[in-house]
């Protein structure tokens, strides 16, 4: 899991969903990048991701990686947000039986992970049913 500097660097994205929109083709980049993968341009305007969307796909992870064992089982999904951007995150406050392609979701601020009992607490966004 990320070191303090790796975690801190992504705070604008993890806490505030700060993204960029390509001035050439309008593609929303999250996280922001130096080059647009769609049109190759390098000029962007700042934006924020929409806070709501719908699930394109999902799963329930039952064999967790290191650091997430206590959370298992947990749902994750890829959502297409209402501004067209796509995002991967856990889906919480949602009975597994409610998970389906097309489920409307919104983003909520949650704890992602703790680096043990003594390490930094990592925060970020998760999907909850709208």
């Amino acid at each position: 899991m990320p070191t303090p500097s790796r975690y801190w660097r992504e705070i604008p994205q993890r806490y505030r969903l700060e993204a960029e929109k390509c001035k050439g083709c309008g593609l929303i980049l999250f996280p922001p990048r130096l080059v647009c993968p769609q049109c190759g341009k390098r000029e962007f305007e700042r934006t924020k991701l929409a806070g709501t969307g719908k699930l394109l796909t999902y799963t329930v992870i039952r064999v967790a990686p290191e650091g997430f064992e206590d959370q298992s089982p947990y749902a994750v999904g890829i959502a297409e947000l209402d501004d067209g951007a796509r995002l991967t995150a856990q889906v919480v406050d949602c009975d597994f039986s409610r998970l389906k392609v097309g489920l409307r979701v919104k983003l909520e601020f949650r704890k992602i992970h703790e680096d043990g009992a003594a390490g930094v607490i990592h925060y970020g966004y998760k999907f909850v049913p709208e």
Partner: protein
Amino acid sequence: MSGIIGYGAYIPRNRIKVEEIAKVWGADAPSYKKGLLLEEKAVPSPDQDTITMSVEASKNALRRAGIDPREIGAVYIGSESHPYAVKPSGTVLAEAIGATPDVHTADLEFACKAGTEGMFIALSLVQAGAIKYGLAVGADTSQGAPGDALEYSAAAGAAAFIFGREKLVAEALDTFSYTTDTPDFWRREYQYYPQHGGRFTGDPAYFKHVMGAAQGLLAKAKMKPSDFDYVVFHQPNGKFPLRVGEMLGFVRKQIDPGWLVPKLGNTYSGSSPLGLTATLDIAKPGNMILIVSYGSGAGSDGFIFRVTDRIDEVRELAPRTRDLLDRDKVYLEYGTYAKYRRKIRKAE
């Protein structure tokens, strides 16, 4: 003129019933329910803490305030369950809402009073003209020791208030704080659970300070209980706020809208603040509200608010407290609750 320009609440979805806890400890559920006037309490999910709830409550407050978060000059979270012993919670909140970097932040603690402390400080800074807007949050995910009476009530929730001088939703008319050194409930560093003085937490603690702050404030403002439409007290259980209200001369009708504890539990620093958000949710323009918090150790902060016309414009811009309390509840059995609340000892 200063006061509340936006308010917001956040309550987790999980609940556990008194019966479920009583079953495990061989206690008599009906007598606890009757004695505490409590049915169930809110339980945070493992991925929720004082910070995450503060962020969501603050976002709700921002929705109602309609201001640019960059103009917030101070951010305070009052809690007795800050996630870190050393590293502020308020900085995470300030970053998450976009108030950084020119903002003053402090973490506050004073048992269950820490929320209203932040409100007092933010309001005072606004009144002094030192800042344009101030955000104060009362939030907790407190622990009750397993098998202890407090386990039935220790709950989780957050309430956020933004103070300013224009577009007030509720004008702050007066404040009064009453404080003494009274060791009724405490937790030493490195201890996982708090301790308390049993019945000592009643008359010399809760009642003395709530009465002291309420009577002091009423005298200062030259007002009496019947001048108020609503009153909100700190709610460690269902009985105490009803009893103190009666002792002070208030009636049930004034207390009921903010009396959340039977279904919510005691959200500690969020307790009276959530009672206030629930009251604002149903208040009408011109209503007078008295709120008196209580924090062990001990002290009470009292505020008088007068609701403005603007309440009708902002009320529906964010979820109502009672909707958060009543929606989509997930009932836990004790095992899952113990796992979520880290009461189960695991390998290092």
